[in-house]
């Protein structure tokens, strides 16, 4: 051990004597190791770290929302679970205790907190005994809201607050950092107390279930039991419970499942960057070891074993690896801070991204492994060199083996860089294709604002309609085109119901097809710029007391009225209570990209806000378009909303272009990050080619001098060096293409309208890399062509 420490001390001394080499090596390694540490910190936070609940691996959920009665029945009958609970998002207004506050709350059913295994920090959580119709008005708040709104008042528990116009007693404050698995909310109310009608309705599937598996019960067993239970439910309640999906999944998988392929791709990318960095440094170390041939020969002649010589080189590579790791960790720390602000919201669990102890250990292991990896070849060569050859003095011609080794390093770097560049190219191609998709309406010039009408003042439909009409009148008076919609295209929300078309063969109850429903008011289609393909638009005349009407989209017409027109046909919602309420289709409009730019629209229907008496649909997105363009439009919209209701908080006024842009956040982030890694790889590979050729020229100085003395002209010398670089590039690109063909399949899930083997991308990337590599040859080639044969031969 002391011998190794001695070697380490010598290595540090040697490295400090060549600060240029050391700086380049450490910077290269910092880039490679730092990128790995940063991505590992994200992978660890998102994929590896368990959810912050006790025994979180036992937490499972269902693919779809279910109703409160279904959840209760499941809880009562299924034996696979220790606890069964659920929650539903609900915008809530908190009044009467300081400034009115609009917050996102959760309606909690059953034993959600028991299922999550979390206790309150102050007071208590909500239990099944709180969640009963006619029960006491009790509420639990998050630590954040307790701090923000009540200044961490320890006497808050027991105090009455007004939520949605109703008094609630706060019975508990949750611990800091507590959050529901899938949502960020600030206040919890018992569902059956706050919204008894919805909680009573077996057909309102609005609860996101959280189930805790009984210890020792596998998810497969639980799945089988839930499937059997749901079959019984369907037999007993065919109207509401047919088609319930029993496909239990772990909550962790549900949250992070979508991110897995992206993170795997990024991990692969940073792995490749590190490999390129290793190859780069190994190549430099080989050259450095060659330059130390005489010293190593003397040591060997004085009795040093080959293993000892190899150990000296390994000590140097280990010191470099650790120094690179330390610098890389600092870079990773910066990067994770940047991730926290720049990573897309669609990537879950980002709040917990940090360079913690796990990341530290990872970086240490990677640093040591990296040092050993890139030191291996130079160490083996140091141990192998015959002392006599070294003592005779190193010749400066490049031996065939040296040349092959240097070229092999450069070829590997070019090949690895090509794999990365192909990945980045495919994702950039995907992004470009996504950006060029027409969302179905011109987003330019549109501004949107989200409104949640507080229940305290807008409990019933008439007051909601009055506000909506007043706001649209104000906006129209300001010479704007304005409308409202309940589910904004690309806004991330949707609502669907089962439906029946009049005159069609009967469909068994519960198996009716689903239709997406979007409530609108004002000239929505005109404001959005959607095309009317038949019939008429919805108008102000389609009021509460007018016949029920709807406009359907192309997808609906195509699927359910193939070859014919839907205009004049009638349909009804399958779960309507009371006598059938037939809705006449009066218009047909073009599809929009509602669910994402890469996803086509699904059958949908637009109905007037005024009809159907949906008191609970208190939210809306206002869309406004001005013929004069968007500047100041946002402010005008805010002013008009304030004029319509001075107390109404206005959330998120956004340019529609930003809404579209946000939907591209994830592919853009991924393409950007992979592009950055590919850029780093390209830079490292290019430097690798420069380094190898530079070494080659340095080692071939005498040979080139001889050739010039024998008549080679400078252009020919330049061509020879560039030819060497071109051969390296060609071999690297050839191998890289084979690697990319295999690796690109891993990106399939992340691509849109681009085949993993897209010839144009492969060709473009190969050309780029070839140009960069050959361009990189210029400097060494110029140096070679300027070798003074006299100096070169004299220096012998």
């Amino acid at each position, binding site marked *: 051990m002391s011998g190794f420490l001695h070697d380490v001390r010598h290595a540090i001394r040697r490295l400090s004597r060549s600060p240029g080499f050391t700086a380049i090596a450490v910077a290269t390694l910092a880039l490679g190791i730092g990128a790995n540490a940063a991505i590992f910190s994200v992978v660890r936070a998102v994929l590896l770290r368990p959810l912050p609940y006790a025994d979180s691996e036992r937490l499972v959920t269902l693919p779809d929302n279910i109703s409160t009665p279904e959840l209760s029945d499941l809880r009562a009958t299924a034996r696979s679970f220790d606890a069964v609970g659920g929650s539903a998002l609900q915008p809530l207004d908190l009044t009467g205790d300081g400034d009115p506050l609009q917050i996102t709350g959760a309606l909690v059913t059953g034993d959600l907190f028991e299922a999550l295994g979390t206790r309150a920090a102050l007071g208590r959580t909500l239990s099944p005994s709180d969640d009963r119709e006619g029960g006491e008005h009790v509420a639990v708040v998050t630590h954040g809201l307790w701090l923000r709104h009540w200044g961490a008042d320890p006497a808050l528990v027991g105090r009455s607050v007004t939520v949605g116009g109703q008094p609630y007693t706060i019975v508990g404050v949750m611990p800091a950092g507590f959050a529901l698995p899938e949502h960020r909310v600030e206040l919890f109310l018992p569902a059956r107390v706050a919204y008894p009608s919805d909680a009573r309705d077996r057909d309102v599937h609005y609860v996101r279930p959280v189930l805790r598996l009984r210890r020792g019960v596998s998810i497969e067993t639980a799945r089988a039991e839930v499937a059997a239970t749901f079959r019984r439910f369907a037999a007993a309640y065919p109207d509401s419970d047919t088609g319930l999906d029993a496909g239990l999944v772990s909550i962790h998988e549900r949250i992070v499942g979508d991110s897995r392929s992206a993170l795997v791709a990024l991990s692969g990318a940073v792995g490749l960057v590190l490999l390129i960095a290793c190859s780069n440094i190994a190549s430099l170390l080989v050259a450095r070891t060659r330059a130390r041939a005489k010293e190593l020969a003397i040591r060997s002649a004085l009795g040093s074993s080959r293993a000892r010589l190899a150990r000296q080189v390994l000590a140097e590579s280990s010191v470099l690896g650790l120094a690179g790791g330390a610098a890389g960790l600092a870079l990773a720390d910066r990067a994770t801070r940047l991730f926290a602000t720049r990573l897309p919201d669609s990537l879950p669990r980002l709040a917990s991204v940090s360079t913690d102890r796990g990341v530290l250990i990872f970086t240490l292991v990677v640093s040591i492994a990296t040092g050993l990896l890139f030191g291996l070849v130079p160490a083996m060569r140091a141990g192998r060199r015959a002392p006599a050859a070294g003592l005779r003095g190193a010749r400066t011609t490049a*031996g065939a083996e040296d040349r092959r080794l240097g070229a092999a390093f450069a070829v590997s770097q070019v090949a690895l860089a090509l794999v990365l560049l192909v990945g980045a190219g495919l994702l950039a191609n995907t992004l470009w294709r996504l950006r060029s998709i027409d969302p179905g309406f011109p987003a330019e010039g549109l501004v949107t604002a989200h409104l949640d009408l507080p229940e305290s003042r807008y409990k019933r439909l008439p007051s909601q309609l009055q506000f909506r009409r007043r706001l649209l009148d104000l906006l129209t008076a300001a010479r704007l085109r304005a409308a409202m919609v309940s589910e904004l295209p690309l806004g991330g929300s949707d609502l669907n119901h089962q439906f029946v078309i009049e005159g069609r063969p009967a469909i068994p109850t519960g198996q009716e097809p689903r239709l997406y429903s979007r409530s609108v008011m004002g000239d929505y289609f005109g404001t959005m710029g959607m095309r009317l393909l038949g019939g008429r638009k919805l108008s102000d005349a389609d009021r509460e007391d007018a016949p029920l009407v709807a406009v359907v989209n192309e997808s609906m017409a195509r699927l359910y009225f193939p070859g014919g027109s839907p205009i004049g046909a009638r349909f009804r919602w399958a779960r309507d209570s009371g006598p059938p309420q037939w809705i006449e289709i009066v218009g047909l409009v073009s599809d929009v990209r509602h669910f994402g730019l890469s996803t086509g629209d699904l059958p949908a229907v637009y109905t007037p806000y005024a009809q159907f008496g949906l008191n609970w649909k208190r939210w809306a997105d206002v869309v406004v378009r001005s013929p004069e363009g968007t500047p100041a439009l946002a402010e005008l919209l805010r002013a008009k909303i304030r004029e319509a209701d001075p107390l109404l908080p206005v959330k998120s006024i956004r340019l529609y272009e930003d809404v579209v842009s946000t939907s591209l956040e994830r592919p853009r982030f991924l393409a950007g990050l992979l592009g950055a890694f590919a850029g780093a790889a390209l830079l490292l590979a290019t430097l690798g080619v420069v380094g190898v050729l530079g070494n080659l020229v340095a080692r071939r100085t*005498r040979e080139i001098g*001889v050739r010039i*003395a024998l*008549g080679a*002209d400078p252009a*020919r010398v330049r061509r020879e060096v560039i030819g060497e670089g071109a051969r390296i590039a060609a071999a690297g690109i050839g191998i890289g293409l084979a690697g990319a063909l295999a690796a690109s399949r891993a990106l399939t899930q992340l691509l849109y309208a681009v085949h993993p083997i897209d010839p144009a991308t492969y060709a473009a990337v190969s050309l780029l890399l070839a140009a960069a590599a050959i361009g990189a040859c210029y400097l060494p080639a110029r140096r070679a062509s300027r070798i*003074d044969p*006299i100096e070169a031969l004299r220096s012998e």
Partner: protein
Amino acid sequence: MIELRNIEKAFETRAGKTFVLRRIDLTINEGEFVTIMGPSGAGKTTLLSILGMLDHSWTGEYRFLGEAVHEMKPRDRIDLNKKNVGFVFQQYHLLDDLTVAENLDIPLSYRNIKGSERASLVADTLDRFQIVGKKDLFPSQLSGGQQQLVGVARALIARPKLLLADEPTGNLHSDQGREIMRLFQKLNDEGTTIVQVTHSEENARYGQRIVRLADGWIAGVETVTERMGQPAGASR
């Protein structure tokens, strides 16, 4: 063949201008065998490089076969070198990775000569220098004398009018050295103009004239009266 007038070469150093060659006036006729001698640092190799048109940074007038080298662009000088000059180096400077035959081919490869013609020239030269048996060997498999023999063969393969040799026997033992010098003399007898740089008085006596340099100046020019391997007073 060669006329040098007022050739000077200097380096800028911290101490000022340092001259390597000063006011060199020298004429070398076709078919001559001239030896340049002088202590280390006298400028011998530099003068040889200027003669071989490998060194471009000098002042003065240099006419080679009637052409004004001093007025030529470097590229034209290289062409003139290619057509007319062959080099022999003290350390042979054979390329380690190439066989004897491939080393001989190098100068031809830079001279727009057809492949078949090159092969024939290489074969002729191997034959002429009696190294056919060694054509597939690498330099490391040859003795010093054999390596220098290949070096001379390589210098002559493109049939230069002028052979420049920088300490051609410096790395050889005396027998091998004498063999190379006799070869030079034979080549000279066959019409090749030779300029050699050497420290050896004995080798100098294989030539006809000795130019002595000191501190960059021509310190003296003397005619060899008793050439090695030739009757006293014999001179062409």
